[in-house]
């Protein structure tokens, strides 16, 4: 069983696929809904306090916006703990998204810094690409080995 960090971390589909292939998804438990009635697209389900941006200082300096540091207090430990990663670029909002582009840049950079198996795909635009997309993820997860 391998700890797999997923990006977007809010993607329930991706999280479910990782779990189905016997690995542990490292993701947020936030689902993106069709109607947005919260402050952000991926409003945190847990109580974030002003302490979280301070914890985020481990990954981003004080001149980095508080929203980035608050997010990093959640995702930084996941990136540190992960043994593999799947990154989906240009994902549709409905697939899963993370509200802050600067955090997204930092997350992807930190994942790239780790010497771990990594699958990086663009979000499919049509059915044919969709089939290839799912197959590539399946191949990657199967190839990780150690599935429970």
């Amino acid at each position, binding site marked *: 069983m391998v700890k797999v960090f997923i990006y977007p971390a809010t993607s329930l589909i991706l999280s479910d696929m990782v779990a189905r292939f016997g690995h542990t998804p490292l993701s947020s438990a936030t689902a993106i809904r069709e*109607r*947005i009635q919260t402050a952000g697209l991926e409003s945190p389900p847990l109580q974030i306090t002003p302490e979280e*941006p301070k914890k985020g200082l481990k990954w981003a300096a004080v001149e980095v916006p508080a929203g980035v540091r*608050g997010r990093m207090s959640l995702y930084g430990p996941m990136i540190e703990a992960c043994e593999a990663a799947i990154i989906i670029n240009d994902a549709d909002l409905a697939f899963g998204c993370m*509200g802050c582009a600067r955090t997204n840049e930092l997350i992807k950079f930190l994942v790239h810094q780790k010497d771990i198996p990594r699958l990086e795909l663009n979000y499919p635009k049509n059915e044919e690409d969709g089939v290839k997309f799912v197959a590539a993820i399946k191949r990657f997860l199967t190839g990780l080995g150690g599935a429970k």
Partner: protein
Amino acid sequence: MTQPVRIAQLSCGPEYSGIQHEIDEAAREVGGEIFFPDVALKDIRRDFAKFGLDVKSPDLKLAIARAMALVEGRVEADAVFIATCFRCAEAAIVRNELRRYINEHSRLPVVSYSFTERTTSGTLLTRMEALTTIAKRRALLARETQKGLTLGLDSGSATTKAVVMRDNKIIGTGWQPTTEVLKSANEVIAHALAEAGVSRDEIQAVGTTGYGRFLVGKEINADLIQEELTVNSKGAVYLANRQHGPATVIDIGGMDNKAISVMDGIPGVFTMGGICAGASGRFLEMTAKRLGVEITELGPLSMKGFGGRVPMNSYCIVFGTQSLVNALAAGSTREDVAAAACHSVAEQVYEQQLQEVDIKEPVIMVGGTSLIEGLVFAMGELLQTKIVVPPYSQYIGAVGSALLASGFIKDD
């Protein structure tokens, strides 16, 4: 029970900064209710493309879609609060453009704010109060003349001011530095009453504003307790006789600064704050002290100098003071240093705050610092316009309070 004022929040980052509950709390304290305009994912895709600002952060795209929903009337609100992370350039661009867009295409009052994890409800309170005041008290803010015998008190961070008005005329004033809030208030009221030749019992209505408005308002049983953003706007256009059409009000205060874009005497967009005391009247007080002159002499002194000869950056009051000391030690004249200090404060306000409102003429400067002619001159140079300083400009909050309080006279 009155309905809460519905304040639409357009934002990026407050939850992950841990301050969403501070925003909610500030709104609740002044009878407001924060809500997030309900939009669908498809609205975000469509409206973001239509707006045409190609930002990358999805939450900023959401803010754009929500702004369009408000302007197009798909979602109803009484006011708008725009908040994004401090130090985020992408968010700052969106914040400014949304503020401008909403102001140009709707009558919704807007305030924008950039927060850190240290932002508290107390910091946001006056801004939220102004939003709810504009939404709830449009009829009161439309008042153009003062009637009867009223008293206005402005309990500011640096000075306390009182004004007695009768039938649209100022008949008594009182002014002194704020020490003990209640004591200062009682003394300036006594002075204003004595100058007006009336007793407290004759006063028909009382209004308070400024930092000490709640404490003093309760003590003197005020009919109107209202934040200084709306009160000063009203006072400014009233005294400058510009009650109709657009105007911009600038109030460089002792502790913070206000820049307010006004239409028919009612604020549309406003900012309040200041990065550091270096951009406030405090720095000019310090400059006067260091130059060995009274604050009232700083203006005439600065008009004799040329600020360009002295490098000064009052972005931070400590650095500004260092510049001041260095310049004097290097042989700069007091006149040039005074002019440089005025220019520096004006430049900070111009760079930090005036970018957040749309400058529309006439530009009216009010508050005690508007009497420092070097500061007014520097601001006029920066804005390339002639600044209007109305009579009694230092009493602006007190006059605005007395004017608005007359709406509470029983027979009115």
